C-alpha cells in the first residue's frame, strides 16, 4: 500500500484541476501509488488573501471531487487571516470532504496566531501539515524551519503535526524534531540523497516517517527511491509508504465515514 502525503496540481498537463488530477493519477498508477493527498491550487500564492485561499481550495475540491476514491484534499490556510482560515477549515473540512490542513510560508508557524487553527483542526481530527526548510541560501520571510514547528508542537503536545520536507536539509531537520514525539517527518520534496531515510528511521523510529513526493514538480521516482533504496527493514518501508499516514488519517476518515 502506497499513500502519497504530498502532491500538488503543478507540473502536469491540464486546463482544469480535474484534468491535472487525472494526469497525476495516471502517472501514479505506473508507480503503484493508491492514494494521493493534494493541496494548494494553481498558481501558487506565497501569502494568499482570503479570496485566493478560497479560490485555491475550490480548485482542490474540484480535483478531488472527480476522484474521491483516489485522493484526499487538505485545506490551504494562511495564519495571517485567522477568521478567514477558520472559515475555510469549516467549509472544506467540517462541512466539506477535505481531511487535512496545509500551512505553507506566509507566517512562521511558531507564532501564537496559529493556535486557533491547530485547536480547531484537532477538534476535527484533521491531519496537519506544515512546510519547513533549513535553507542554506536563505529562507523566505515567513518560511518556517523545523525549530518553529517544534515550538508549535510543544504548545500542542497531544496533536500530531507533520514536519513538511523534514526541513529539506534533513540532517538538521531530523535532529531538530527528534525529541518532540508528536512531530512526524515528511520525506517529500528534496533530492533523493542516500542515507536520508536510514537516519530518519534511526533517530525518529519508522512510525514517525511518511513518504510523500511533492509531485508533480518532483518525480514520484526520486521520492519513492528514498524508501525503496533505503537500507531499512521491509516492515519499516511498509509503515513509511502508507501505514503511518493511514494511521494518522483514520480518526477523520472514520468520522467522515470514508472507507480506506
Amino acid at each position, binding site marked *: *500500500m*502506497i499513500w502519497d502525503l*504530498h502532491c*500538488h496540481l*503543478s*507540473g*502536469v*498537463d491540464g486546463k482544469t484541476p480535474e484534468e491535472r488530477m487525472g494526469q*497525476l493519477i495516471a*502517472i501514479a498508477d*505506473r*508507480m*503503484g*501509488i*493508491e492514494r494521493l493527498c493534494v493541496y*494548494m491550487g494553481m498558481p*501558487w500564492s506565497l501569502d494568499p488573501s482570503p479570496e485566493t485561499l478560497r479560490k485555491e481550495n475550490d480548485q482542490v475540491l474540484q480535483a478531488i471531487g472527480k476522484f474521491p476514491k483516489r485522493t484526499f484534499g487538505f485545506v490551504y490556510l494562511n495564519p495571517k487571516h485567522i477568521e478567514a482560515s477558520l472559515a475555510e477549515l469549516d467549509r472544506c473540512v467540517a462541512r466539506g470532504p477535505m481531511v487535512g490542513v496545509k500551512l*505553507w510560508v506566509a507566517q512562521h508557524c511558531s507564532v501564537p496566531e496559529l493556535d486557533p487553527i491547530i485547536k480547531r483542526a484537532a477538534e476535527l481530527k484533521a491531519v496537519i501539515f506544515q*512546510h519547513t*526548510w533549513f*535553507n*542554506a*541560501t536563505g529562507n523566505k520571510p515567513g518560511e518556517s524551519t523545523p525549530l518553529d514547528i517544534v515550538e508549535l508542537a510543544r504548545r500542542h503536545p497531544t496533536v500530531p503535526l507533520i514536519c513538511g*520536507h523534514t526541513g*529539506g*536539509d534533513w*540532517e538538521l531537520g531530523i535532529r531538530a524534531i527528534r525529541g518532540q514525539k508528536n512531530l512526524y517527518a515528511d520525506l517529500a*520534496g*528534496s*533530492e*533523493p*540523497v*542516500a*542515507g536520508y531515510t*536510514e537516519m530518519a528511521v534511526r533517530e525518529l523510529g519508522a512510525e514517525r516517517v511518511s513518504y510523500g513526493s*511533492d*509531485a*508533480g*514538480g*518532483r*518525480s*514520484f*521516482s*526520486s521520492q*519513492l*527511491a*528514498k*524508501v*525503496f*533504496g*533505503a*537500507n531499512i527493514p*521491509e516492515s519499516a*518501508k*511498509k509503515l513509511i*509508504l*502508507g501505514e503511518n499516514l493511514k494511521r494518522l488519517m483514520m480518526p477523520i476518515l472514520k468520522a467522515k465515514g470514508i472507507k480506506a
Partner: protein
Amino acid sequence: MNQPNAVAASFRLGGPTTALARLNRREFIAATAAVAVASSITTDAAETKSPALIDTNVSLSRWPFRRCPLDDTPSLVAKLRGHNVTQAWAGTFDALLHKDLSSANARLADECRRHGKGILVPIGALNPTLPNWEEDLRRCAEQHKMPGVRLHPNFHGYKLDDPLFERALVAATERRLLVQISLGEEDDRTQSALAKAPSADAAPLAAILKQFPKARVQVLNAFRTLRGKPVLDLAAVGARFEIATLEIVAGVGELLKQIPPDRLCFGSHAPFYYFESAKLKLQESDLTPAQLAALSHDNARKLLTV
C-alpha cells in the same frame, strides 16, 4: 511544496499516449516490477530482470560531508550488479576538494581494477586551474587508459566561459576523450556553510561547443538548474545529458519529446543519490522500447565508442 526544478513548464507538451507505448509500458513494468503493485514493496526480486543499464554517473570514495551508505566500492558494485548495470562510469569524490588529483586518479583507476573489473570504467578528474593539469590529462589517457575525464567547475572555482575551460576541452578532445561536466553534486540549499559550491552556470557552453564540434561532452547533474531553452540549445550542438537530477512527474518522457533521442543517457549519481531514483524514472514515463534501449545503454555505448 518545494520544487526548485521548473523543467515542468518548459518540457511538458502533453498529447495522447499510443497503444504501442502503453503495451511497451506494460511489458517494461512486467520486467522491472520494482513498485508496480502496491502490495509488493520488495525491490530485490525483480532487479535481475531489469534491462541492461550503463550508468554514466557514479562516484567512488567518500562524499566530503557525510558517509553515503554505499561509499565503499564493493558495496556499490554489488548494488549496481543487482540492478543489472553492466557498466558504470566512475569518477571520484576525492576530486572535489583534493589538490593532488594525480593520486586521486591513480586511486580511482586502481579501485576500478580491483573491485569493479568488467563493470567500473574510471573517469579521471581534471582541474584546469591546477598547475600542470596537462600532465593529469596525459596520465588519465596514457597511463590509466581512461576513456574520459570529469570536470567539476563549481568545486574547482572557474566558469565555463573561462579560457582555462576551453583549453581543457580542446586538449581532452585532441586525445579523443569524453568530457563530463558536472554542474553540481548537491542542492545549493543544503550545502555546508563552510563549503558553498553553487551549481555551475552552463549558459556559455552551447556557444563553445559550437566552435568545437568534435568535442564529446556530457553534462552531469544538469537538470537541477538547467532548464528550458538552454537545454535545447545544448542538445542542438550535440551535448549529452543524464537523468539523475531530472525531476517532475514522468520527466524522462517529457524531455524526450523535446530533445533528440540520442542525447539522454542513464545516470544515477550513486552513491550520493539512491540508485533506485534513476531506475524508477524508466518506469514512471511511458517509453517505447526504442527509447528505453537508447536511454538504458545504447546512447552511452555510442558516446564512449565514437
